[in-house]
């Protein structure tokens, strides 16, 4: 597992926390946590995009964050489960895995960074 892809995945994981935080934070500590998650998450995403293509990193970051948020709203906040959501998350994961495969090949060919 490439270090920079790891950063993108951690950034997307933290994105879940701050998206939920923006919707549900209610006092000083929950807002502090939300703001720290925003800063760390974006920092990781931006540093990963200094090596990997920014368009790819941003799409994966936003996509995985959305999927994670949808899953946690179903698990923890009583949003209804729908088959459509499962199907869309599957499509999203295919896209992310595909991007990871294609990008690894490119960076070997290009050797730009």
């Amino acid at each position: 597992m490439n270090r920079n892809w790891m950063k993108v995945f951690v950034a997307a994981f933290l994105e879940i926390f701050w998206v939920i935080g923006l919707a549900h934070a209610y006092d000083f500590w929950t807002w502090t946590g939300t703001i720290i998650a925003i800063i760390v998450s974006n920092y990781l995403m931006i540093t990963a995009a200094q090596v990997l293509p920014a368009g790819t990193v941003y799409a994966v970051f936003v996509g995985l964050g959305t999927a994670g948020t949808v899953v946690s709203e179903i698990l923890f906040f009583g949003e209804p489960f729908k088959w459509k959501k499962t199907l869309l998350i599957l499509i999203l994961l295919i896209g992310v895995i595909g991007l990871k495969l294609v990008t690894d090949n490119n960076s070997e060919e290009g050797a730009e960074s």
Partner: protein
Amino acid sequence: MAWFSLILAGLLEAFGVAMINQLHVNRNWRTVVLLIIGFGSSLILLGYSLQFLPMGTAYAIWTGIGVVGGTLIGMIFYGESRDWRRLIFIALVLCAAVGLKLVS
């Protein structure tokens, strides 16, 4: 006004992605400040438009403009890969993310 600020928020998000690219080319404080202003004002405008527009639709449009704009700017101005497989996979991620925001 709500739609205008939503579209502007999407464009500023794409601008933020462009500044991530710019930071790679030219690592200075001016770029970092522009990057923070881009993403920051994008979030503020999104928050404003969410007071008037349905959340799923607004998020979907905002994400869509950000990803498509960021990818196009990356390819046109910063020499990012135009490999058709990359574009198809980005399109898959984008369609799924927009779909999830619309059904949620």
